[in-house]
Every structure is written in structure tokens, then in C-alpha cells.
């Protein structure tokens, strides 16, 4: 068996941090994705333009650069905004917050395209029928459109989730104590880089495999009652 020199608990804590980061970014990304998609499908051209530039810009930039921009840039931007309101103290953005926002932003940019596609894929007659039954626009969106968007977008979201999970490793570079960072720490102490990076790789493999199994179950559940074309 691999000798972890007593760093097992540290790696476990790092894995837990990785999971926290993943799920916080996921929550933010899903919200941004829904907003992005509704903006892209909006009647107002300003909103459409905003939604489209958001996904084009974010998808054209390296994820790693986004993490750096959010970590180093956020302090700058926040301080200049705060000084407009007369607050001149130093503001520091933690690596966790910067990482979550950066990864959430990236996830949201891709998810907004998925949601847009899914909303379009739902027959407009369904929304018309709901409106004819007297549902308000909001009720129609939450009761008719959104549950089906979930089903259609789920396979794509699963892929994005897997990518997000692997992208959390990037946040180690700005100092968040997640799996990759604690592994580097263990490497520095033990002088056994291969052993520890391989262990980290295996942990990531387990995480992504579990996630992929979970996605399969979610998809099965979301597709209950949908006729399959044999």
C-alpha cells in the first residue's frame, strides 16, 4: 500500500474543501446560467446583448486566467467601488470567494447556452396552454418550463459539473487549501512528488466517477414518464 507519511487526514480535509468549492460554484453557476439564458431570450435588445457578450467573453478566456482575474482583480475593483462610497479601508477577497465566483461565472456562461437551448426546445404551445388556463407568466415559467428545462439540460449540465470539479484544482494556485494545494504541501515535506500527485489524481478520479454515476441516476429520475424511442 502507498505510504502517505501521515498526510492522509490533510488530504481528506483538502478533498472536503474541493467539494465545498465545487458545490458553491455550482449553485452560483446555475443561478447565473438561468439569468443568462433568460437575458438571451429576452425581448429587450440590451439584455440580449449583455447575455451574449457574457457567454462569448467568458468562454473565450482560459479558466485559469479567470481565476487570476477574480483573485487579483476583485480587490482592486471592490476598493475603487468602495472608495466611491467613502470607504477607504483595505478590502481583501479570500481565495475561496474569488475561486467560487470565478468558477461560478465560467459554469454560468456555458450553462446559459444549455438553458437557452433547452427553453427553445420546449414547444411554445405548452406555455400558451398554461397561459390559457390562467397561470401567470411566473407560474408558467416555474411550473411548466423550468421542470422540462431541467430534464433537457441535464446531460449537458453533467458534463459541465465534471469540468467544474476538475477546474477547482486551479484555485490552488491562488492559495486555497483544497486537494491540490495540500498535496503540494505534502510533496514539499515528504519529497515524494509522484506518490502524492498520483494519490491526488486517484482522489479526483473517484470524485468524478461518483459524480458521473450520480448524474446517471439523476437523468433516469428526470426522464421518468418520458417515452423512449426504441
Amino acid at each position, binding site marked *: 500500500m502507498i505510504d502517505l507519511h501521515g498526510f492522509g487526514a490533510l488530504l481528506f480535509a483538502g478533498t472536503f474543501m474541493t467539494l465545498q468549492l465545487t458545490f458553491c460554484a455550482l449553485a452560483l453557476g446555475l443561478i447565473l446560467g438561468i439569468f443568462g439564458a433568460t437575458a438571451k431570450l429576452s425581448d429587450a435588445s440590451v439584455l440580449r446583448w449583455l447575455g451574449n457578450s457574457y457567454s462569448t467573453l467568458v468562454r473565450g478566456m482560459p479558466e485559469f486566467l479567470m481565476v487570476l482575474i477574480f483573485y487579483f482583480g476583485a480587490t482592486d475593483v471592490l476598493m475603487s467601488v468602495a472608495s466611491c462610497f467613502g470607504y477607504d479601508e483595505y478590502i481583501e477577497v479570500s481565495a475561496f470567494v474569488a475561486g467560487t465566483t470565478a468558477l461560478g461565472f465560467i459554469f454560468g456562461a456555458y450553462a446559459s447556452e444549455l438553458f437557452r437551448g433547452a427553453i427553445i426546445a420546449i414547444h411554445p404551445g405548452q406555455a400558451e396552454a398554461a397561459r390559457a388556463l390562467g397561470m401567470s407568466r411566473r407560474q408558467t415559467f416555474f411550473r411548466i418550463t423550468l421542470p422540462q428545462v431541467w430534464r433537457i439540460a441535464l446531460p449537458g449540465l453533467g458534463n459541465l459539473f465534471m469540468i467544474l470539479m476538475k*477546474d477547482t484544482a*486551479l484555485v490552488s494556485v491562488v492559495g486555497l487549501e483544497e486537494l491540490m494545494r495540500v498535496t503540494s504541501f505534502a510533496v514539499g515535506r515528504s519529497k515524494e512528488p509522484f506518490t502524492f500527485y498520483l494519490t491526488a489524481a486517484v482522489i479526483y478520479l473517484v470524485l468524478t466517477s461518483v459524480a458521473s454515476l450520480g448524474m446517471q441516476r439523476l437523468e433516469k429520475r428526470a426522464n421518468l414518464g418520458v417515452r423512449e424511442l426504441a
Partner: protein
Amino acid sequence: MDWDVVLQMIPKLAEGAVLTLKLLVLSGVIGLCLAVPMAVAKASRVWWISLFPRVYVFFFRGTPLLVQLFLVYYGLGQFETVRSSILWPVLFNAYWCAVLTFSLHTAAYITEILRGAIQAVPPGEIEAARAIGMRPSQVFRRIVLPRAFRMALPAYGNEVILMLKASALASTITLLDITGMAHTLYAKTYLPMESFVTAGVFYLIITYALTHLIWFLERRLHPDRKEPVTIIG
């Protein structure tokens, strides 16, 4: 934004862009060469032929590129046999480590793309080729592979763009690609927005150029088709 500083940064970032492009082209070509035999093996119905590519793809798609990069750059030096081998001068060099890791990484994704394309070649075409007397190797060389390459091109284009963005990680092992340059410029000027956002613009320009290059290739390979397939960039 301080525009004078931005202007002064451009030559340095352009220098970084040359390295980014070098990494991208090398890993794209080597990755493709590695992926062709693996895709063929993975499409095989014999389980032990498809075993290696399946394990390979599972590992490289399931772990972050950063881990793979560190495993090669820092990890391999742990073994005395590697350090005393003739390969050590190559593996000691950050540039070649990046090329090696990126090639292995992208090869896994290209394998999947090509495998899908090989399996999507219409059976009728293969039957027709056999019927006019082509040998299995000829069918493969003249029918299956050209058809598969053509079908895989849009997805391959996507993968090249993903690899362009992934290549930013080269900066974590001391290389001065666009991101690495931006990082040193930031360390010199303490202007994060100027240095990183300008670097981002460089990536956007390269993405834009690549997308159009792939559209052009698609038009060349599909003379019968007028509208190019849109690529998610």
C-alpha cells in the same frame, strides 16, 4: 484602466502568445498522432484491444490537467531510474514537460472524438467498399478514416480551442506563455486588471482566429455543403 501601461504590455504579451501557439500546435499534432491508433483500438470489439485506450481515456479525462502536469514535471524526478536515463534532459525541461503532458491530455479527448466518428461511418459505405473488392486495410485507409476525419473536424476544432485555454496552465511550471507573461507584468506593475484583462484579449483574438480557420477547413472538406457547422467556442 491605464491605457499607456496596456500599450507597453503588448510586446511582452505577444512574445508570450508565440510560446502559447507553439505549445498548442505541437500538442495538437502529437496528440492527434497518438489518438488515431488509440481510437482505432478503442472502437475494436475485442475487449483486450480496447482495454488500454479505455483506461487511458478514463484516467486523462477524470483528473485535472494541473495534476497531470505536476505528475510529469515534479513527479517523475522522484525515481532514480528516470533521473539517470537519457530522457532526463527532456523531462527536466519545463517546456518539453508541458508539450508532453498537453499531448497526452488532448490525445485522450481526441481519441473519444475519433472513436465516435469511426463508429458513425455508415455501414453501407463499408459494405459497398468490401463489395467492390477492397481489402480490410484498404477499406480502412480509403473509406473509414477519411470519412471519420471529416465528421470529427468540428469536434476537433472545439478540442483545439479547449486546449488553447488549458495551455494557460503552462505558466504554473515557470513557462512564460501569455498567462505567465501577464503574471510577471502584474508582479512588476501591481495592475491586475490591466495585465490579466489584456492577456484575456489575446486569448479571445486567438480563439476567434482558430474558429474561422476551422470553418475554412470545413468548407474545404465539405465542398457540397454551403453553411459551416457552428462551433461552440
